């Protein structure tokens, strides 16, 4: 084994060597074709959001964002994410710990079940809670008697948000922690560390970028979810409208400028998410590739 004095640069350094393999004409044709596709499906949709949002000037833009219904929608969206993300974070850590560090029967089934919410249509994700807690649902009558309202109310929105963002943290952490094995944790225990000390001082620092990555993706989806939340919300303005639902209402009322203004906030959030994601992917690559 040779001494690695400094971290080796990560990247596709060898890709440059391949660059000139295809004739220039083929190369530029393929790049042009791909870019035309991406312009039509990515760049123009992105650009139109901001041009439409500002089509009536900054004053109208600011007005659309500071209007009371918009503010209350933002508040609800932040609330839903503030509940869903920490819960799914704790779940993700627990699930990744038990799956990566222990052997038990049914493990691969458990991994599949954790991914389940990703394969369920957003509309169905909302519907299952309506069927459980709605007035026609299994627990609806009981809840009604006790005057507890979950569906067409804030708790339903939070529940639907938890469901659709359920796997995000877990699916980032599970492969990462599996790849890292359990030798470091065993070493910590042999050295006298308690379970908590091992977790906080050894496990967590080793997965912190992956964890953050999962949290950021989880948060983006929590704040942007539309279908599932739409089904359970009841669309009560100023009460049970999240930001994406507010966009829908404005758009359907032909108030397109305001719709795009509010949408632009969500778009900025998406762009920040992508930037953070790119940086984190690079850090995670460093963390998993450099095994001591």
């Amino acid at each position: 084994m040779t001494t690695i004095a400094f971290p080796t640069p990560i990247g596709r350094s060898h890709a440059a060597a391949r660059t000139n393999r295809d004739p220039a004409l083929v190369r530029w044709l393929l790049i042009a074709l791909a870019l035309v596709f991406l312009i039509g499906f990515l760049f123009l949709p992105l650009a139109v959001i901001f041009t439409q949002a500002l089509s009536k000037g900054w004053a109208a833009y600011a007005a659309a964002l500071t209007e009371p219904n918009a503010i209350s929608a933002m508040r609800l969206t932040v609330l839903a994410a503030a509940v869903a993300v920490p819960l799914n974070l704790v779940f993700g850590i627990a699930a990744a710990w038990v799956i990566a560090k222990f052997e038990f029967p049914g493990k691969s089934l458990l991994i599949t079940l954790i991914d389940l919410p990703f394969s369920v249509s957003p509309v169905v994700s909302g519907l299952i809670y309506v069927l459980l807690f709605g007035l026609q649902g299994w627990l609806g009558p009981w809840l009604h008697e006790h005057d507890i309202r979950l569906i067409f109310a804030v708790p339903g929105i939070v529940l639907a948000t938890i469901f659709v963002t359920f796997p995000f943290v877990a699916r980032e952490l599970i492969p990462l922690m599996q790849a890292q094995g359990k030798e470091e944790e065993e070493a910590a225990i042999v050295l006298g560390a308690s379970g908590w000390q091992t977790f906080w001082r050894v496990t967590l620092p080793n997965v912190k970028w992956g964890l953050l990555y999962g949290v950021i993706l989880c948060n983006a989806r929590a704040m942007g979810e539309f279908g599932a939340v739409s089904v359970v919300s009841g669309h009560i303005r100023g009460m049970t409208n999240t930001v994406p639902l507010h966009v829908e209402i404005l758009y359907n009322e032909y108030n397109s400028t305001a719709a795009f203004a509010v949408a632009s906030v969500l778009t900025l959030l998406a762009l920040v998410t992508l930037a953070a994601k790119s940086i984190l992917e690079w850090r995670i690559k460093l963390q998993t590739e450099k095994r001591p």
Partner: protein
Amino acid sequence: MLKRHSVLPGFSITLGFTLTYLSLIVLIPLSATFLKSATLGWDGFWAVVTAPRVLASYKLTFGAALTGATINAVFGLLVAWILVRYDFFGKKLVDALVDLPFALPTAVAGIALATIYSSKGWIGLFFAPLGIKIAHTPLGIVVALTFIGLPFVVRTVQPVLEAFDTELEEAAASLGANRSQTFRKVILPTLLPAILTGFALAFARAVGEYGSVIFIAGNIPMVSEITPLLIVTKLEQYDYAGATALAVSMLVVSFGLLLAINGLQRWTEMRRA
């Protein structure tokens, strides 16, 4: 619970919490849905899921999802190819933006696509004189489903292409194969499992998609009404039984796709190993 002895603590508590949380949030609500549909009886269930309007929505949903996934298989491979193999200005930015459909809320994507593909929009403008309407037709649905499925093929093919040993290509070339033979006989077979996995992921996502579609679809029954929208419509008409039956039919399809995708991913990994 069977468990190998381990000095690491927390097995029971983390497994207990994982199973409880999974059951409360996912398993119990999903099973409740299946139970609810059972109250319809088989005949009632069958009548709902095979009604003409429902069948039309299946045809549209699966047809558009299949078309979108196919477009993505082709262009996703192309995008992955130029990102891995070529250098060009703005490559890093393009690479990062490929994930936009994952990060952008579907409702925002929906209104943006509806705007540029309408007959007065930036792109729709060029098609209107040809008599082609995109927004508010089934074509618009294909556009939306292509958008939301875009990252899947790119992101499954990209790592395989990066790991691809260029020695194989050089070997093929040294044996006298020309560029297109090398691509068809050496590169494409290696990438195939990844392309199929990406295709299946894009298709699965497209089948259930709702937010980005409803703004651009037109939502005319029998013509441009997708199945998830039909579920919402039934719900709004307080037809819970009907909505449940449709939801169950979609869940069955989703689970089938999930199994297929798991199989494909295993195949991809075997090929990479």
